[in-house]
């Protein structure tokens, strides 16, 4: 029961809404918890124990840390300056060990389920290469849904409690809801405790605004997913599935098609997720901000899967960059190596773990690791050439914000994105390189209009639907980029206009969505990560 299924949108959600509303306000969060666990159970069955285990661990470590804090405060009162220092140090050490235990256990489970087979198969490969007669077997491990997402949320919560940014939650059930809230369990967004906790437990009554805005957001997501993404899935499947038979512009088409599919799918799913939260008055953070308007690779990542980027920044990038060793290098470097080099090395030291984790987070495959490293190298290159670039611009009298320069930058970023997604989607790193190389052989752009596209499984009508869908999404996106968010405006208009727009959207989804006879339902991509 993915978020895009009619079962979720038209049965599960309404039932959940009715039960939620019928409960007295202080029990409503319990209704949400019940439906969250039901949802998880329907998807993953007994693997629910992993979620319960992670919840218990997170909850008790948080609670223990806050209890330690209370004791620390008690000891501190009335102690003199010197003892204060040693008391603080003692409790810090204790909390730090608790945090370490928590993170290691959570990561351990995730790593075991997600990376064990990858690790084993690579070890076997090496052993085979050394012709050692020992080969450890792979295991068939079932991953509970959303483990990559709730694990990050759990770690973030523990770190926030450790840093004193969040107060520890004292009720187990609430922690369970924070980690398991059904709209976000499968694909995020990855929330901070302080983002959602308040509204999750508030038990706000349903309102007409929330219901209509929430459901419209859901329909907007369905439009992206079912009108555009599910159709493109056909082309993408054909070319990536038989990549040896295609070359030249076909590969470019596949890379673009997959990028658009992934965007429509993931951001559409986020629309459904955020809309679902909105129905209950829960404000979930946005995960996308017109990523195709980005002017550089690093800006792209501030607009694409935002909550993942934010998580890495808060819990990997900053902690590494203020760690002792990096700081010492910083001081040493500025004295001896100059500003430029210092900055470069510092950036590399802090960014490398971020991008390695980004790649690995998507799954245990060399192509994902490559994908992470690809962005690491590109962003480092961007930093490295920045001074030279700035100089060049001022010599050529190009203004940073002039229109054509902006277009060039956006186009450059598009190429970077498409190539990245090509490797990301390709069936293994080897296939990725094969495809990338074959793109430069026999590149005939004419296939875009000579009818060759029709040989990829989609008819003229389906291609037209994709094109129109993309235009609609692009127009609404660029309006938003210019500060005219159409959905926000719509809320303020008169009833006939607003309802007209609602009806148009609903009918567009009913008529143009790829469902029913002749279409295969396509599972959510990010739910697999």
């Amino acid at each position, binding site marked *: 029961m993915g978020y895009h299924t009619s079962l979720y949108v038209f049965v599960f959600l309404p039932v959940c809404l009715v039960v939620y509303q019928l409960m007295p306000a202080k029990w409503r969060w319990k209704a949400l918890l019940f439906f969250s666990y039901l949802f998880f159970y329907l998807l993953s069955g007994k693997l629910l124990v992993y979620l319960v285990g992670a919840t218990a661990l997170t909850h008790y470590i948080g609670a223990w840390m806050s209890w330690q804090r209370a004791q620390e405060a008690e000891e501190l009162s009335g102690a003199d300056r010197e003892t204060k220092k040693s008391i603080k140090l003692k409790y810090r050490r204790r909390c730090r060990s608790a945090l370490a235990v928590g993170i290691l256990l959570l990561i351990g489970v995730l790593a075991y389920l997600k990376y064990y087979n990858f690790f084993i198969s690579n070890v076997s490969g090496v052993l085979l290469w050394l012709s050692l007669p020992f080969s450890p077997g792979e295991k068939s491990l079932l991953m509970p849904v959303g483990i990559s997402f709730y694990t990050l949320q759990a770690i973030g919560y523990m770190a926030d409690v450790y840093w004193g940014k969040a107060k520890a939650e004292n009720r187990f059930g609430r922690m369970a809801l924070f980690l398991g809230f059904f709209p976000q369990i499968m694909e995020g967004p990855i929330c901070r405790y302080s983002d959602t906790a308040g509204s999750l437990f508030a038990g706000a009554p349903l309102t007409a605004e929330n219901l209509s805005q929430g459901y419209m957001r859901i329909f907007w997501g369905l439009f992206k997913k079912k009108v555009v993404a599910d159709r493109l899935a056909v082309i993408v499947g054909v070319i990536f599935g038989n990549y040896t038979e295609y070359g030249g512009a076909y590969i470019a088409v596949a890379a673009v098609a997959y990028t658009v599919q992934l965007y429509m799918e993931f951001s559409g799913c986020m629309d459904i997720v955020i809309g679902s939260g909105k129905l209950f008055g829960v404000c979930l953070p946005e995960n996308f901000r017109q990523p195709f308007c980005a002017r550089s690779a690093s800006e792209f990542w501030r607009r694409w899967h935002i909550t993942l980027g934010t998580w890495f920044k808060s819990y990997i990038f900053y902690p590494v960059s203020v760690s002792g060793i990096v700081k010492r290098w910083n001081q040493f470097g500025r004295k001896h190596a100059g500003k430029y080099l210092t900055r470069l090395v510092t950036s590399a030291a802090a960014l490398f773990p971020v991008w390695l984790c980004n790649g690995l987070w998507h799954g245990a495959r060399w192509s994902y690791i490559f994908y992470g490293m690809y962005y690491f190298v590109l962003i480092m290159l961007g930093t490295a050439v920045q001074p030279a670039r700035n100089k060049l611009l001022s010599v050529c009298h190009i203004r940073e914000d002039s229109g054509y320069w902006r277009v060039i930058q956006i186009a450059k970023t598009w190429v970077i994105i498409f190539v990245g997604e090509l490797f990301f989607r390709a069936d293994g790193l080897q296939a990725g390189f094969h495809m990338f190389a074959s793109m430069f052989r026999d590149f005939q752009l004419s296939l875009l209009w000579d009818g060759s596209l029709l040989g990829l499984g989609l*008819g003229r*009508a389906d291609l037209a639907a994709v094109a129109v869908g993309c235009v609609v999404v692009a127009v609404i996106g660029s309006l938003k980029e210019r500060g005219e968010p159409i959905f926000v405006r719509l809320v303020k208009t008169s009833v006939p206009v607003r309802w007209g727009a609602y*009806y148009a959207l609903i*009918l567009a989804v009913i*008529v143009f969505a790829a469902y029913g*006879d002749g279409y295969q339902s396509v599972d959510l991509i990010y739910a697999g990560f």
Partner: protein
Amino acid sequence: MGKMLKKGVLFFTVLLVLLFLASIWISALAAGMADRVQGRNRPVAGITAEEGDTVDLLVVGDSESYTSVSTMDLWKQYGTASYVCGQGGQRIQEAYYMLKTAFRTQSPKVVMVETNMMFRDPGIFKNAQISLAEPLRYYLPVFRYHNLWKLLLDEPKEMTSDYKGFVIKEKITSCKGAEYMKETGEMQELPEFVRFYMRRIQDLCERNGAQLLMVSVPSPKNYNYKKINALRHYAKQNGIPYVDMNLKAEEIGMDWSKDSYDGGDHLNIHGAQKVTAYLGKYLKENYGLPDRRNDAAYSSWNTLAEKFDTEVKQKTGQ
């Protein structure tokens, strides 16, 4: 709260009206190009486009039905006006709403259910989904025919001709068939939702003055003794006549070396003609369906039968 409720009711009423209007429009569109509708909706559009009150025998079922019951052979031999509303992998829910659709314009005397679909159980989720989607498609055809706009843009595809729902398959893939019916006393359980919808089908036929008949066509891949036992038991319990052709395969003259086109799953035209001959005799003896061959209103059926003969000859080289 009251105002919110009123507004909500108004919103959904308008939405319903819009969907209803769209449905009327799209149904008219579908009727106009019934011969171009493809896939699962083809028999739905087809039976709706048939001249009213002309069909005497209606068949529902999965792919077994439209590869086995040769409507044109029934016509040529007995003058029976039959129509096969079978769909690939038809679900029992689809069969029910197919019949409901057919009964709007037709008043068949006999409704035949090919029983293979009665063992299909796609699991609780899929079942719930189909049980909700089918009535939606029935009452608001905009959901059924929503893809129709594509026909306006796509190049016309070459259609396999179908003869009142029957499809000619000429390929021969032989199989060992003889021993698939090993006698046993065991029964394969019929899913509960199948029983539920079969009861609804039975009621529906009763209300519309049609006699219900269950038929199992010969298929080594799909049938076995356990299933036949279950079907016999169910038919007896509910007072539905039941014809099993798997145990009578010899009497019918099935030759598994040349009567199936995919190795014992579906029948080819040779197998279908044998099964149809047997079925026609059975129907004649038990139901006395009218012979329409000389009825002027049915002249198009004769033309179609000639076309059928030509295609069979051309495909089988006989």
